[in-house]
């Protein structure tokens, strides 16, 4: 055993291609630009839960791939999504984060749009006579929107495949849960962290990093056999992880959850993950659900959005229990997500300026235990969409 020379450090590892990730994927500006176009511009993105726009004319604003979006429920009850940009001079139409409005009027010249995206009025239109500029032609740009079990997804590519084709059954890991319960978002936070977006998403798929988290060492790793775990990879780079268990009272100060009111189809000690490509994660622990998205801001900064969900109409006592269980793990003061973000920022410190040359994803446990097969599935899809091998992304 010895330290390594520069030659040893820089040499291509004697691992199969696809068992290591080249460092430039985390810091190369050209790769970052390509990701925005070939990945974020073309995949289905989870944007919100339908409970966030529960009433007619409710709206939420958000963004995907740097494109500002309005998600709104129309008078016909249908949820639609539009690019939040005025057809006139390109100003942002809706400035707020959410609300309820029958129409949206651009602050700049008062062009007004309804919840179906139609331009319904513009002041003094006669001056456009003969130009083709008229309210009938000047609606908002609609974005493809589909809903799966209450989760609203959008795709910026008008020629994209249907959502179910993209999902390839990856959310079926929740098919005993989600169709049977009407859910409601009770927690939302967004946070910018100093890390490449993939570094954060990898913490979701990388089960080997359980060792980093005290709560997982205490509650999850000893709770069930590593052989009971099942990690599956899907077309389009999605991953599911089932067979995880947790004994929550093994963490000092936490109560057991055996009597807790669970989600339908789940036991209190169940944990299931579905990290969808590229960076959207659905997780249930027996009593509560979390949905995360990660979006690139720069090659060195990303935006995490995190939601906690309970069951609509449940008692105040059950809701408080779910909030507490959510926050123990996942809130900004929780014991888990904070550490994942720390890990992503820690990788940025070394990959960001090229000190780290590669990451190894060579663990093979046949989809059990702490196998890296999920990471390899993610990176295989990344390569397919990017036209670059992830082990040597600059083809060197």
């Amino acid at each position, binding site marked *: 055993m010895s330290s390594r020379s520069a030659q040893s450090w820089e040499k291509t590892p004697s691992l199969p291609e696809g068992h290591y990730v080249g460092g430039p994927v985390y810091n190369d500006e050209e790769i970052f630009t390509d990701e925005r176009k070939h990945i974020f511009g073309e995949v289905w993105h989870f944007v919100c839960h339908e409970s966030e726009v529960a009433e007619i004319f409710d709206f939420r604003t958000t963004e995907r791939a740097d494109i500002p979006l309005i998600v709104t429920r129309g008078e016909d009850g249908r949820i639609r999504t539009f690019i939040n940009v005025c057809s006139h001079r390109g100003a942002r139409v809706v400035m707020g984060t959410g609300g309820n409005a029958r129409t949206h009027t651009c602050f700049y010249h008062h062009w007004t749009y309804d919840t179906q995206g139609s331009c319904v009025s513009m002041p003094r239109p006669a001056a456009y006579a003969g130009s083709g500029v008229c309210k009938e032609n000047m609606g908002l740009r609609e974005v493809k929107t589909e809903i799966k079990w209450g989760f609203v997804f959008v795709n910026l590519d008008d020629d994209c495949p249907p959502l179910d084709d993209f999902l390839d059954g990856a959310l079926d890991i929740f098919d005993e849960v989600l169709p049977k319960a009407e859910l409601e978002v009770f927690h939302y936070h967004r946070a910018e962290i100093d890390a490449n977006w993939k570094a954060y998403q990898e913490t979701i798929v990388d089960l080997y990093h359980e060792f*980093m988290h005290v709560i997982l060492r205490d509650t999850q790793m000893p709770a069930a056999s590593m052989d009971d775990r099942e990690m599956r990879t899907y077309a389009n780079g999605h991953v599911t992880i089932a067979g995880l268990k947790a004994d929550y009272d093994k963490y000092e100060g936490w109560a057991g959850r055996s009597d807790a009111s669970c989600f339908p189809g789940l036991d209190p000690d169940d944990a299931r993950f579905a990290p969808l490509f590229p960076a959207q994660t659905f997780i249930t622990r027996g009593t509560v659900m979390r949905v995360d998205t990660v979006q690139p801001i720069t090659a060195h900064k990303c935006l995490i959005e995190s939601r906690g969900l309970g069951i609509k109409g449940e008692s105040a006592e059950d809701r*408080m229990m779910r909030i507490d269980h959510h926050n123990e793990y996942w809130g900004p003061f929780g014991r888990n997500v904070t550490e994942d973000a720390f890990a992503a920022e820690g990788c940025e410190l070394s990959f960001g300026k090229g000190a780290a040359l590669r990451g190894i994803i060579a663990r093979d446990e046949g989809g059990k235990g702490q196998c890296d097969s999920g990471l390899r599935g993610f990176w295989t899809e990344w390569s397919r969409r990017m036209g670059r091998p992830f082990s040597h992304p600059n083809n060197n």
Partner: protein
Amino acid sequence: MPASNDDVRELIYRSCRCLDLQDFDGYIALCASEFRYRITLYSPELRKEMIWLNHDRDGLAALLAAVPRHLVRLGSLQRNVTAYTIDRDETNNSAEVLSAFSVFNIDNEGRPSVFAVGHYHDTVSLSDDQPLLVSRNARLASRDLGIGSHIPI
């Protein structure tokens, strides 16, 4: 003799100093047995109130005791607090105290950044010479906390 307003102010400042120094036993000693701690805020996205942390005295003590086992943000959090108003209820020997807080993160290289901004809504027991925190609602005005924190505000 009921605690004075100066005593109340000192309690608020001392509680923050204890958290700054990670003197968690010292912090808990300032809390009454029925203490309730919450971090709350309003989400304009959801148009709902949210609770980001909710503990009784024992739960908070356990959470704080576990901090050294965890992988926590680098550097330290420093609280800057001003007690704005103290509304005394002499009948019940208690006071409602509103304070403003700004929490700065000082990283390992000594660089400061704002971590969180908001107000404490405290209920303080005045029944003894030594006032105690009966409840604290750390009400956040800012909502993006970066990687978050294992240590409450």
